[in-house]
């Protein structure tokens, strides 16, 4: 169990509105030394209701206290399946804070931004080497926008070939954003059931000349490698379709298998997963997209190129799908990812993958037997258990809540939907054997509690700042404004 001792100074905190005192201010501002101007009436609000009045220290303490309730990968183990919550090395932060990067403006002339452009060019090249794709855009803001970018390019390619296709095939083990991305691009989504992994027969049964693409997540959301992916790509290509890969789980392949070599046509990266840039509330994300040669003309403009005079932003791309993001994507995130790649090196990236897979399989080996494993195929970087083995009407939610009492952030639960009461654990390469053993001890103790003292699970968490939350009421009747409407 993680030490959760010394909680006497975990402080409660009210809303700023509740702390407000009439007339209290942070600063006294010097009187105006320029002529008074009254704004036009149409620009003035009649009243600002209950605007909080606070001193500086009130505000500082408010946010500092809230920050102490936070939990992140710098606090402890964060086994959130499908999210690759790996540690973000501080050297990335140091690199992103170099004045040469922080003090430039995106509209600075190219000749004065050569360092930044060189970094983007080199990062494109490195991601191409990792993925096996010959061309790349760094523009998309995060994974789902990467999917959208990829699907727009697929549509543009079909249209350039004089074809209007209407359907996209997506297996039930794909990431949840895939159907939304396909639908946003105007496609009808055809869902195919998989038996853990996708079969050629299942794809063949729905593949026809109206299918624009297959979107596949590899390894899939069960943490399983799509072993038939090459044959499935052939099958889709034979009917004139393309194959999109969701690269969210690249942490299981990096340095070992290249999607561009096995028939995939388009793939997005999640730099905030695989390449150690901040994830979640600490983001923003970054979702570069790699493509095969025939899709290169459709990449969003501009792309970074290099000629005898130096690095350039190339805008003259008549077949481009256009711009997806202001300027050049989340540049400072690109710096962090490049820093990670350079500090790891090719061997290091491969080693990270090996350890991520080893860690997940070690967890599987320790928990299998106590927790039900619905898919017996070999796991890669994450492992998904079901709630079927839990005793005394205990459910996945209860296990997740009880883990909080043991000092761990819960894993992803109830996803993927194909597993009954899914408990989806992804340790990443970050964690040591000691940490993983402690975590597994906690989960085994919880399985034991489910047998002997199920109320401990039902009431959990009891050691956290707040007890079991009423999620249904929070979603049905959220309080979204102050003062609370009566």
């Amino acid at each position, binding site marked *: 169990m993680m030490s959760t001792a010394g909680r006497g100074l975990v402080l409660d905190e009210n809303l700023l509105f509740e702390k407000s005192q009439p007339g209290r201010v942070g600063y006294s501002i010097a009187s105006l030394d320029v002529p008074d101007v009254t704004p036009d009436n149409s620009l003035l609000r009649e009243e600002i209701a209950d605007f909080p009045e606070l001193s500086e220290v009130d505000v500082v303490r408010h946010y500092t206290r809230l920050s102490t309730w936070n939990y992140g990968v710098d606090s402890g183990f964060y086994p959130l399946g499908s999210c690759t919550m790996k540690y973000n090395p501080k050297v990335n932060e140091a690199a992103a804070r170099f004045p040469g990067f922080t003090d430039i403006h995106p509209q600075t002339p190219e000749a004065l931004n050569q360092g930044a452009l060189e970094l983007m060019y080199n990062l494109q090249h490195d991601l191409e080497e990792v993925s096996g794709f010959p061309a790349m855009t760094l523009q998309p803001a995060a994974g789902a926008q990467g999917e959208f970018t990829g699907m727009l390019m697929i549509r543009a390619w079909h249209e350039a070939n004089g074809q209007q296709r209407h359907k996209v095939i997506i297996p039930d083990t794909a990431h949840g954003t895939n159907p939304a991305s396909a639908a946003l691009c105007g496609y009808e989504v055809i869902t195919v059931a998989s038996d853990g992994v996708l079969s050629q027969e299942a794809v063949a049964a729905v593949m026809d000349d109206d299918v624009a693409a297959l979107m596949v997540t590899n390894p899939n959301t069960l943490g399983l490698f799509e072993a038939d992916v090459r044959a499935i790509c052939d099958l889709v290509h034979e009917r004139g379709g393309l194959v999109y890969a969701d690269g969210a789980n690249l942490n299981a392949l990096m340095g070992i298998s290249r999607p561009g070599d096995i028939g995939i046509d388009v793939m997005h990266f999640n730099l905030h997963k695989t390449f150690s840039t901040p994830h979640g509330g600490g983001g923003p994300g970054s979702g570069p997209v790699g493509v095969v040669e025939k899709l290169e003309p459709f990449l969003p403009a501009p792309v970074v190129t290099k000629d005898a005079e130096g690095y350039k932003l190339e805008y003259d791309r008549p077949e481009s799908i256009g711009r997806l993001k202001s300027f050049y994507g989340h540049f400072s995130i690109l710096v962090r990812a490049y820093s990670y790649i350079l500090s790891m090196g090719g061997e290091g990236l491969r080693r990270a993958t090996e350890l991520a897979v080893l860690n997940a399989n070690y967890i599987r080996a320790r928990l299998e037997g106590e927790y039900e494993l619905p898919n017996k195929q070999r796991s890669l970087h994450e492992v998904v258990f079901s709630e079927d083995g839990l005793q005394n009407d205990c459910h996945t939610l209860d296990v997740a809540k009880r883990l909080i009492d043991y000092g761990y952030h819960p894993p992803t639960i109830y996803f993927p939907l194909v597993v009954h009461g899914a408990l989806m654990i992804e340790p990443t390469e970050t964690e040591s054997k000691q940490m993983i053993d402690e975590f597994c001890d906690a989960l085994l103790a919880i399985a034991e509690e489910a047998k002997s003292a199920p109320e401990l699970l039902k009431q959990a968490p009891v050691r956290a700042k707040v007890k079991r939350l009423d999620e249904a009421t929070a*979603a049905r009747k959220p309080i979204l404004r102050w003062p609370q409407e009566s």
Partner: protein
Amino acid sequence: MSFPEELKYTEDHEWVLIEDDVVTIGITDFAQEQLGDIVFVELPEVGDSLETGKSFGVVESVKAVSDVYAPVSGEVVEINEELPDDPEVLNNSPYDDGWMIKLKLADSASLDELMDVSAYQEFVEKD
């Protein structure tokens, strides 16, 4: 879990009440229990045409978001307007107050595909 005798059922865990050429559609007790606390419901509009097997609405619980599929083709003649404001009714009364839509049947032949209560019970046990 209860499954009323007079209803027909689908593999997507919807129930269908047939009254002449109008059918009432909702989700089963099994479906609401699997979903858990339902927090959001999206329904089609009166006048929409539905096609067998296509999604006509969305049910979201604290666990998951699910599409609801039209068991038969037809035109929407009435929707349960209370549901979007009180989604918990789907949990508390799936067969009565929790009905979702009424359809005017386009083709009564598609009713033959539906399961009766014993076939559905068997299906749920296998599932």
